[in-house]
């Protein structure tokens, strides 16, 4: 059975997505909506990773520690935040933000389709607990995709047609 493998892969994707949300949030700290929302969504991804951790044991799958965050992370966040506040008034920051949101969208879509795969596996394995994890988390991932779509739709005209 390769369920453990799928769990491990999704755990990695969610952890990476959490990091990306945080980075984008810090990089665009002068954009308050993105800053706050990205931090909320990063926490949501971390919760997904934790829930995957709780079910991984049954598939004899070892996952990296969720709490093991790079020591440099805090320092990097602070630097990005400072950079953002210095550069936040410049127009290219809007174009960069659009690019970052697009990258996040693609990463969130990858998570989403991987949840679909894991959900199918959970059904076939008759694993009710895993199925519940998939249902809860996948719903949230779908909302993340929807939120990113909303942001990209609203922001594109200004960046691409205005200046």
């Amino acid at each position, binding site marked *: 059975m390769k369920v453990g493998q799928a769990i491990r892969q999704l755990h990695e994707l969610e952890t990476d997505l959490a990091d990306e949300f945080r980075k984008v949030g810090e990089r665009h700290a002068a954009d308050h*909506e993105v800053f706050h929302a990205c931090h909320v969504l990063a926490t949501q991804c971390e919760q997904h990773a934790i829930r995957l951790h709780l079910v991984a044991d049954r598939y004899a799958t070892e996952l990296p520690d969720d709490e093991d965050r790079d020591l440099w992370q805090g320092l990097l966040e602070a630097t990005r935040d400072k950079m953002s506040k210095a550069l936040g*008034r410049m*127009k290219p920051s809007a174009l960069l933000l659009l690019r970052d949101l697009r990258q996040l969208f693609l990463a969130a879509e990858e998570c989403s389709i991987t949840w679909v795969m894991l959900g199918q596996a959970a059904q076939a394995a008759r694993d009710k607990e895993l199925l519940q994890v998939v249902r809860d988390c996948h719903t949230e991932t779908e909302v*993340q995709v929807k939120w990113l779509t909303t942001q990209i739709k609203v922001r594109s005209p200004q960046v691409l047609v205005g200046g």
Partner: protein
Amino acid sequence: MNSRISDIWGKRTPFSRVDEWPARVDEYLDPTVDVAAVEWRQSACVLCSNGCALDIGVHEGRIVGVRGREIDRVNRGRLGPKGLYGWQANNAEDRLKRPLVREGGELVETDWDTALTRLVDKLRSVLEKVGHPAIGFYTTGQLFLEDYYTLAVLARAGIGTNHLDGNTRLCTATSSFALKETFGSDGQPGSFRDIDLCDTLFHVGINIAETQTVSWMRMLDRLHGPDRPRLIVVDPRETAAAKEADIHLAIKNGTNVALLNALLHELIANDRVDREWIDAHTVGFDALSLIVEKYPPERSAEICAVDPGEIREAARVLGASEALLSFVLQGVYQSNQATAAACLVNNVNLLRGMIGKPGAGVLQMNGQPTAQNTRETGCNGDLPGFRNWQNDAQVADLARVWKVEPLDIPHWGPPTHAMQIFRLAEQGSIQFLWVIGTNPAVSMPELHRMRSILGQDSLFLVVSDAFLTETAQFADVVLPAALWGEKTGTFTNADRTVHLSEQAVEPPGEAKPDMEIFLSVADKLGLKDRDGAPLIRWRTPEEAFEAWKECSKGRPCDYTGITYDKLRGGSGIQWPCNEDAPGGTERLYNDGVFLTGSDVTEDYGHELTSGAAFTEAEHRALHAAGRAILKAAEYIPPRELPDEDYPLSLTTGRTVYHFHTRTKTGRSPQLQEAEPDVWVELAAKDAEALGVTEGDLVRVESPRGALEGPARVRGMHVGIVFIPFHYGYWDEPNGSEPNGRPRAANELTMTIWDPVSKQPIFKSAKVRVMRL
């Protein structure tokens, strides 16, 4: 008459459910004027969303007082302190009387042609160089319908920008979004008449005794009458209404969703819901049940820091009510999870089947007097007439009315919200911003940021106002505007009552009505429709009103049955008013059919926690088709919580004597003397811990700024600091920013907004307080 400064609500006139609310005519005239020589002009009050009808007293070309209109359904002659005394601002010496332009860094007087030419030249050059995305408008909740509608056509069809919003974003955006999410469209379901008929009043985050004093008088008259309704008040502060309440849930600020989920939990768990009605008239019950199941009173009591027994008792009263009337305002709209909480209040009424019936309904209140018109005419985050920007047929219908191509009307996204307009100005993406009748330099969050945006070189700022406000002092062009009483027009209150306000006097100096200013700019730009005729085809307020009627025809806010003449002499009229309802409509949805069909809805809705927008296909999949939508949401704590450095939580709000940034009320002697300066309200326990007693000067600091003022020790949830937001700097030496002692509450607040309504959250920010 006794001073209505000390006796805010005046003499009681108790009545019961079977009676009419007795009349009581309130009047205040300049005592030096001979009453017999006063002429009267019909109008209504523009100092809160209650919209009390009044007559303006005129003597020798000056406004000399006001008198409530006994015949009117809204107030039966009564007026509150702001209404009685606020008119004196019209006569203030420091009214703007001539246009100003910036020359060598200074604002200097000029004539209209010079000012407008400068404005239009800049507008043209930005349009040519960058295009419509570089143009923004930020308007108000205090103009007249005719002004707004003219502005909406000028900005949306004429200039073609999507960046038009009102300061209504700060006061009433959540009301509009909660109505759209639940009922499919904006439009107040209930009516003030329901206060007369209800058996239970449910106030969630509304300090109505201070914000809408005349509706509170009406409630007091019921509460002191023979069949007193039950009153439940949800508010962290011990307000006047909380003191009158049967149950006061003094929850921690920012926890509305947790409390409301527990109340819904109790209604469902104890089967105090109308299942038959729910099945016939709503969708989403099962999903809602799944979420509120997780909020038993014990869990929410811990989050909200109240007694679980009180939550149970409140749910019992709500569950026993037969005519439940709910009120919502800034304690929800400007608080954590604003739209979600407002929708949950709608759910309380829906689960009880209590909507659209006499005495039973919801009033998602407004803040400002004409905020309703900002929303209706499309000067807020919607297209005119509550049209759905995502629905091509509705956009095409608007294009038909305006005689333009559908693509000429920006509808690629929701109209840009105010906070984003300022963000785009900060980035230099918006280069021309016209601020109309509002004062972001005091009313917006995080003022040091706001001042740096307004003052930045890359922004050409136009301000039209009656006074040189804090904001106007940053402007490149200042245009003097006529106030209420100096122009004719209509406006609509929070229960859909439309009033006519006649011109009583001439504007001072060269000041002009806002509509005339917009028309002058449209003329200078030479704006045309697709047939080459002038885009804006009206010149007088009455012609503008007739044009608006055409735009509103067949829409939920149908005005086609109203004329200026019909509004003269009698009471105000509630829309929709048309051939089917020539006398207006007391309450919406009395047939239990809502505007949720996918072809008619104003909005396809949002996921409430993130603000992610649903698509047309997702909306169709709901099969709401006329049934109300029970939205659900988990509780999420506020983004900023008190910590070691900043151990307290700030909430800002209003006092009964002032309105918005005191531009008018600060120029009325009685109101100004009543509350001349800011103060800092603390709970007794916190004051004691800080060694602060009543009157001590304290300093309040947040990560964003500081404020100083005298302390008041009041009944309040422990850990909360309350500061009124009205006070700025126009009447201090420096004029536009702190000079020594900062006193604007928004020095402290956060730049953060609700994900759905985009209303700024003013009611949770971490702060620390120290004695000076």
